[in-house]
């Protein structure tokens, strides 16, 4: 059961939860399940079929942009705001 860790900004859209248990073997499945559980999150992570440019997603320690990337059943999916630098 992959667990999705949500940033503070998105928690109100998931009923205040900081993490959500999901089902799915790929990132796409996991996020679709997340959106099924919390429809308010639709469009906030994936938009037009891809990860939004202002969002970064990591599966455990690895950042992932490919929605077909596998997610281990004990994995953690981190949804984070994008960063840049000087």
């Amino acid at each position, binding site marked *: 059961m992959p667990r999705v*860790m949500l*940033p*503070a*900004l998105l*928690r*109100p859209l998931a009923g205040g939860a*900081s993490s959500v248990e999901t089902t799915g073997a790929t990132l796409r499945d996991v996020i679709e399940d997340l959106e099924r559980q919390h429809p308010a999150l639709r469009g906030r992570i994936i938009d037009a079929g891809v990860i939004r440019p202002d969002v*970064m997603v*990591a599966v*455990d*320690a*690895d*950042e992932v*942009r490919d929605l077909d990337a596998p997610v281990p059943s004990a994995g*953690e999916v*981190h949804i*984070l*705001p*994008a*960063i*840049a*630098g*000087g």
Partner: protein
Amino acid sequence: MVIENKPKYKVIGTRPVRPDGIDKVTGRAQYGADIHMQGALQGRMKRSPHAHAIIKNIDVSKALALDGVKAVVTAQDLAGPGGDVSTLPDAAQNILASRKVLYRGQAVAAVAAINDHIAQEAVKLIEVEYEVLPHVLDVRESMRPDAPILNETMRTRGPNPGDGATNIVAHTVAAFGDIERGFAECDVIVENEFSTKMVHQGYIEPQAATASWAPDGQLSIWTTTQGSFPAREACAQLLNHPISKIKVTPTEIGGGFGGKISVYLEPVAALLSRKTGKPVAIRMDRIDVFEGTGPTPGTSIKVKLGATKDGKFRAAYADMAYENGAFAGSAAMYATMVITAGYEIEHVKLDGFDVVVNKPRTQDYRAPSAPAAAFAFEQLVDELAEKLKLDPLKLRLMNASKEGSRGPMGMPFKRVGHEECLEAALNSPHYNPPLEGPNRGRGVASGFWFNVGLRSSVNVSVQPDGTVNLNEGNTDIGGTRASLAMQLAETIGVAFEDIKPGVVDTDSVGVNDVTAGSRVTFASGMAVHEAGKNLIKELTTRLAPTWQVPVEEIEFEDGTFKTKDGAKSGTFKEIATQVVGRGVGLTVSGSVNAGFLAGGGFAHAIVDVEVDPETGKVTILRYTAIQDAGTAVHPAYVEGQMQGGAVQGIGWAINEEYYYDESGRMANSSFLDYRLPTSLDVPMIDTIIVEVPNPLHPFGVRGVGEPGIVPPLAAIANAVCHATGVRQTQLPMSPRRILETTLGIG
């Protein structure tokens, strides 16, 4: 100092002279203001004298009537007939205000004239009628419900948006574990409130842009930017002009440090060029730079840190308010992502408040948000070390983040070098002999910055003599032409001198994100590596018929093509000459999206100071910078980044600040009174490069540009505290401030 056995590289790790060097030591290199086009007009911006005011009317008639003036533009021109700047409303207002000015120095109009002197006279003749409003400069004051509101439509992003207008842009919360339980488990708790002032990147070259709008709508822009592609995109949106009709050529750039990402002059020069039919150049002067570009936020940070008596950090809390300047930003959000990154702490809660104030719109500055956060947090670590009677480096080492530690964003770190930096510091020649003498103190501090990846694209073409041209799209500020050419040379097994790198315009290479976030040597390095591999593959394919062997029979190793049986072989240069020579040209490319997270980098500082007890002046006696560079591609240029970051940090710690008068005017907008460190103010900066290869990069590279500025503010504050016995909670630690805190004078 090499921590792990790294592969034996031939080019990486050497110190060749940068390809752009000769032009820079002879005065040939062309920077933003050096673009002189035939018949070009000179532009100047008209700026607000008020910190907060409604624009009632702008009368440009007298300016237009002045001999030699060719055009005047205002925000109306930016929107254009039927135009739409709604995609970047804040950027549009920041470039040319239409309704309200939100800070002194905000541009409201621009002129183009036959020379700069006339343009300046014309600016004075533009009459702007203002209704002056009360202003707010302090971040905590601006958060109060009775503060003057900058933007009536603003509501706080975050858990508690509230109903009314506010200056709080966003409230970011990061929470892990159970903060109350965490503090309850602590034997020692330290807490304090810290504040830092707005500071400027202080690049020596003022912004300059030249635009030429051709009758067919082709717009060419030459500008001193950290990102030609983002600049092109911003111009397209602000001018409502197709991106395909805009070409941005990045000039040499005289420093940026994050301050030359946003556009200021480019769209305005373009409008003036369209209006006049001539090229228009606009150059900022130093006051324009201080008042009208993007410094980095002042902050107010309350921190609390608790540990068990054996020194294990258990809980940390921070309430961090960061100025965004006049428009919404995300500096405090960054701060929540870095403030506790250096340590394993189970229970953490962080509140970040991004807040607008009547100051210039802030921008990134080298590891944005991290130095101020470290200034606060690393002083508490120092205080804990004192209370627990532990060595401050060993206390840090005991708690340091490592591979698998959860960072403040919740996800685990990959291989990082924090522990290795701390060990290097502990074993350094600087740290071991104790500091002698009265009024002296030694301080240490750690710092972290992410480094980012993002998108890079390069083109590589083989010349008839077997040498290779490398065209990249990232502005080279600190020597990236060299560091990329070295990575390509390593990949294809040729000498550094056989690669000719160049930075090209936006029409000539695929998309590249900004030169920022310490990303170019990292991410463009990955693109270069990919292009190199593509080049080998293509050469192999072309070589096979020449050698009359199947492609699979050809191997490339150590810079040499050879058949598996060893019968035929040739170096890259020999084969490239043979295959391309007089034959068909060969160009390949490499393009990557290296993502946001590029591995992260840790830096550390050891600093010795002496404080004059009568005048409060802090002298830096000795400074050692320690940093994990992953793999140091060009060690001398890595040292240069560490030394430059250290001295910027010294300036920030001791003297630099935006000093505002009561009217909301920056009173010290010159290099006379905004005190960058001079050569006489700093010692030699010793460096220790730690190399813990980054698993995300083919050569183990980490971004090295940013982390070096994170520790010095706190390290110096810790040193001053040890010299004087007084903890410094406010920056800058100017002589005035030191006298106030040590002798109570003030």
